[in-house]
């Protein structure tokens, strides 16, 4: 009876040596794979940017080649901020850097400069794909073979975390940009720029 009432000894709690090894191996794998995944994620676009890119690739049917795809997440930007904190940056640049939470860009090129927009309407294709992901087009500009479209999420209520996705397309290249930023400081910066004030006062 007494034996049953006794608390279990520390020996019974201690994991077996084999178990400890696997625990150690698992932790090591996770720790090692985190920076690998972090680094790899710098070269992949987010779902929205990918969706926007793919819709235009399909609509134009052209042979686009990826020139570069970069994705700077919060970790990469925090590292950049830390690194640049030792540099003597203009306050405006620092404000912009502090405001951006995530930024990604994809640049695609095609060798042939033949017409793109006459074939199908990439704007419609992009609108459809973005709408299924809950994004609406805010601005769309088409001028001959050039196209610019800016999308924002349908539900976006906080100015401290604004998401935006944009597409710029011409005969030879396509750029997809996506970013998340705190607009407050950027807005203040824009309003407090004397050049902006002067430009406005020069207007008719």
């Amino acid at each position: 009876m007494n034996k049953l009432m006794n608390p279990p000894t520390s020996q019974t709690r201690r994991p077996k040596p084999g178990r400890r090894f696997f625990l150690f191996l698992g932790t090591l794998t996770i720790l090692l794979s985190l920076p690998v995944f972090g680094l790899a994620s710098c070269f992949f676009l987010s779902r929205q940017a990918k969706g926007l890119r793919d819709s235009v690739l399909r609509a134009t049917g052209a042979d686009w080649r990826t020139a570069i795809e970069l994705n700077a997440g919060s970790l990469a930007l925090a590292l950049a901020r830390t690194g640049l904190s030792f540099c003597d940056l203009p306050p405006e640049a620092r404000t912009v850097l502090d405001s951006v939470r995530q930024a990604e860009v994809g640049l695609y090129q095609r060798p042939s400069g033949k017409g793109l927009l006459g074939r199908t309407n990439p704007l419609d294709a992009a609108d459809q794909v973005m709408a299924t992901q809950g994004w609406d087009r805010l601005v769309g500009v088409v001028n001959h073979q050039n196209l610019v479209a800016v999308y924002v999420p349908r539900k976006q209520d906080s100015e401290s975390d604004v998401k935006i996705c944009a597409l710029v397309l011409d005969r030879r290249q396509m750029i997809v940009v996506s970013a998340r930023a705190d607009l407050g400081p950027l807005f203040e910066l824009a309003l407090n720029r004397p050049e902006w004030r002067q430009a406005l006062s020069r207007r008719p």
Partner: protein
Amino acid sequence: MTEHPSMKIKGFLRFTLASACLWAALSPNLQAKDDVPGYVDFGKFSPPASGGEFVEVHIQNNLISMAARLAEKSEPEIAEVLRGLQLVRVNVIGLKDDNRSEIVDRIESIRDRLDEQGWERIVTAQEKNEDVRVFVKTKDQDTIQGVVVTVLEANRQAVLVNIVGNIQPEKIALIGERFHLDLLKKLNLKAQP
């Protein structure tokens, strides 16, 4: 010297487009419904197949509210104007041989519809190649619920603007004062008696 109404409209359009670009980086969504007073469904436009100019700006109320909150501290008057707005839509469609007649017909039909629905036509300016009409929907003497600007530049482009919300004409003039936009200061949005 009195300015021609079309000049005022051009200034107003310039301001609207500039505002749209300014808030573009900021703004999202009111599911604009036909029953919102001041809202006009222009329908869907597509870029001309032959590759002309096409601009579409669609700023909905959540983005406008966001912009209002951002402007609150430094530009309270502008924030007040923005708070009243629900939707800003701008369409610029280049006119080419393949779409000219269709776009002109659609704009004429929108104008007829506005006349039928009791919108007040406050500007009618017709020159050689330019035809400008501005309509307002008023709630009372001091509040406008919607503004529609229609411009037809016969050989070049058609422009449609719809601003929805509680628009107080004197506040628009205030923005003109604040940013030294003379044309906006002079723009008379008040419904004619």
